[in-house]
């Protein structure tokens, strides 16, 4: 057992209101520089929808992630030989048109335009060339489906849905969508890292954050194609790849990442997971339908004395183990099993999990009313407006069992609380529901507490990162003693 710690995340989609505050917080801190205008390390997509960059989930086009060939795990985008052959021109590289061409406006024209019969206008100006540009797409162009059926219809997750189900998704007055906020998943088996010819991408051993070493990146672009989530971006100005850094400078000083901190719906949770690094390859090679459960088995119980001893032996700090024991992510993922990884069939073992969203009931049967007299207490989950198959494609590698389990449990929690506070449901029904949803009153209470009444410190259990020790390993603290101080590298020696 090779125990490592990982900072993992949960996004509770049932609480996301699609306000994009997270995206703006991230943008203002990290990607307001030249070359990064088009980048959204954090973005919020409308689902069903094509997302950003367009149709990123279509791996027939982008060839991202891993595949299992003859029982062996390998990158879809390249073999070692292909990495050499593709280095001059990468066939799966998205271009700026797959995102959008960044622009600003010629505001000066509003003030400087010569007098004339018409109002002056501010023309859109390309932020790359500085020339006038015609806008064809922009950030969140398909937000709330952008007033067009095109975006929802082209969602790759609609695979396997019947024609009727597809039409119901966008039918007038029954249209449905939910929000899907995305950041880098800081995967356990990152394909971007495995694809980088320079070895510039790496995973931090202590906390699992995946970073790009800017001095080692040589713009071979393999990471951009290899990441199936398209969360590595190319800075066209510096010629380097960039990606979400999980606000590690904030984490190292005990603050939550900016997108987590600013989240209005409080949908985000962050905490430590301990996992067995020796089993990564084995788990990532499992058959698709077993992947969700296999990934859960990779996560270790932080209260197990054996795990604690192995973690200590591997250099995991006691304070980190203690943080893992309080981790909200561990509860959602491992104990309650209601948080699921996105597209685990890409086999990168993402460390960002989603609680699937509940959706309104589809009221298109019979006389357009919902039949509530059924014996099945969970029938509205099966007939929800968002088809189970769709959520299964997104969160269950095409299998909806795990999604159904999570939704049933969420519904049981709702009815449990409804019985307690509203009182219009009898406890016997609720008990039956809890039982059928594989939960108990205590667990339902705990889920309710962490979902609805969670405080800042309950949502973000940030482990101490012990950077003071790390600095001592890298630099001699006495190196600059009696040196010249800020701004000087060489010691001020007497002489020429």
């Amino acid at each position, binding site marked *: 057992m090779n125990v490592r710690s990982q900072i993992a995340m949960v996004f509770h989609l049932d609480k996301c209101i699609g306000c994009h505050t997270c995206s703006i917080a991230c943008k203002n801190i990290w990607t307001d520089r030249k070359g990064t205008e088009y980048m959204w390390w954090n973005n919020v997509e409308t689902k069903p929808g094509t997302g950003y960059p367009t149709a990123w989930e279509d791996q027939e086009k982008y060839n991202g992630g891993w595949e299992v060939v003859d029982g062996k795990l390998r990158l879809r985008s390249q073999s070692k030989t292909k990495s050499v052959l593709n280095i*001059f021109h990468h066939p799966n590289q998205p271009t*700026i048109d797959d995102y959008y061409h960044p622009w600003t406006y010629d505001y000066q024209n509003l003030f400087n335009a010569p007098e004339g019969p018409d109002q002056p206008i501010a023309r859109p100006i390309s932020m*790359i060339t500085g020339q006038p540009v015609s806008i064809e797409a922009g950030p969140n162009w398909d937000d709330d489906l952008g007033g067009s059926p095109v975006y929802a219809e082209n969602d790759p997750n609609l695979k396997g849905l019947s024609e009727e189900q597809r039409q119901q998704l966008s039918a007038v007055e029954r249209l449905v969508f939910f929000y899907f906020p995305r950041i880098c998943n800081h995967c356990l088996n990152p394909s971007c890292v*495995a694809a980088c010819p320079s070895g510039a991408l*790496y995973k931090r051993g202590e906390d699992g954050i995946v970073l790009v070493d800017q001095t080692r990146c040589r713009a071979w672009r393999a990471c951009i194609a290899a990441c199936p989530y398209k969360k590595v971006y190319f800075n066209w100005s510096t010629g380097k790849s960039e990606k979400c850094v999980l606000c590690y400078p904030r984490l190292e000083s005990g603050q939550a990442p900016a997108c987590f901190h600013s989240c209005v719906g409080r949908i985000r949770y962050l905490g430590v997971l301990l996992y067995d690094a020796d089993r990564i390859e084995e788990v990532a090679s499992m058959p698709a339908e077993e992947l969700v459960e296999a990934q859960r088995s990779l996560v270790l119980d932080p209260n197990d004395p054996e795990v604690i001893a192995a973690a200590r032996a591997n250099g995991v700090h006691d304070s980190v183990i203690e943080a893992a024991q309080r981790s909200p992510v561990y509860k959602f993922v491992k104990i309650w099993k209601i948080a699921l990884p996105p597209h685990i069939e890409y086999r990168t073992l993402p460390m960002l999990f989603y609680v699937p969203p509940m959706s309104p009931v589809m009221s298109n049967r019979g006389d357009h009313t919902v039949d509530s007299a059924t014996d099945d207490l969970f029938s509205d989950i099966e007939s929800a407006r968002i088809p189970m198959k769709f959520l299964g494609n997104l969160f269950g590698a095409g299998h909806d069992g795990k999604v159904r389990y999570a939704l049933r449990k969420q519904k049981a929690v709702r009815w449990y609380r409804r019985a307690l506070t509203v009182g219009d449901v009898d406890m016997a029904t609720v008990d039956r529901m809890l039982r059928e949803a594989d939960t108990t009153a205590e667990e339902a209470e705990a889920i309710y507490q962490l979902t609805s009444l969670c405080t800042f410190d309950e949502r973000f259990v940030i482990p101490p990162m012990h950077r003071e020790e790390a600095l001592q*390993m890298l630099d001699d603290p006495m190196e600059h003693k009696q040196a010249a101080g800020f701004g000087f590298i060489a010691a001020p020696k007497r002489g020429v």
Partner: protein
Amino acid sequence: MSNAFTLDTFLFAVAPYLAIGIFLLASIRGYRNRRFVFSSLSSQFLENRQHFWGLVPLHYGIIVVLLGHLVAFLIPREIIAWNSRPLRLYVLEVSALAFGILTVIGLTAAMMRRANVSTVRAVTTGRDRIILGMLLVQAVSGVGTAILYPWGSTWYAATAVPYLRSLLLLAPDVRAVALMPWLVKLHILTAFAIIGYAPFTRLVHVLVAPMPYLWRKPQMVRWYRRPEGALRAQ
């Protein structure tokens, strides 16, 4: 001694060392102090289609041609022996010429792309233009030599190889080059000019071509609190 001979001495016996000296000093200094700039500065992200038709022929052409020059320098005897049968000589000459022409085509396409695509033009610097111009002169003079003065794969062994070997042994002997046509002289001079200018351009990406990837394990993990060091493959 005539003036021309003195000029040849400077151009072919002094300038090469200057170029190589600048190349070594500038690339080592650059790698140590400004490693961030060591990048291929790819613009594929801004324009994809023309990139393929320019950059692929350019790279395959230039790599095969350079390897040809290197092999002919290392094993001249074997090359001459190979060329002793006319058919084998034709095959070698024609394929060398083909890759040379491929280089010129790729280079021209890459230059047209830089000139015509507005987004790519926005990330093109003066140094890019200069080095592309130098490479074009080099490739065209090479193809011109191959056409005007055929059977180069044979006469290279008798002229260029002794000259280059003399440079390598630090006893420059310019007699063989001094008698060359001006086109060949231009080809040699531009080669050294490119070597001297390369460390100041995007050509530095050649120096950091990612060979270790071929035998590296897929995952990279860096530990900050472990004595065995900062970087290792998992």
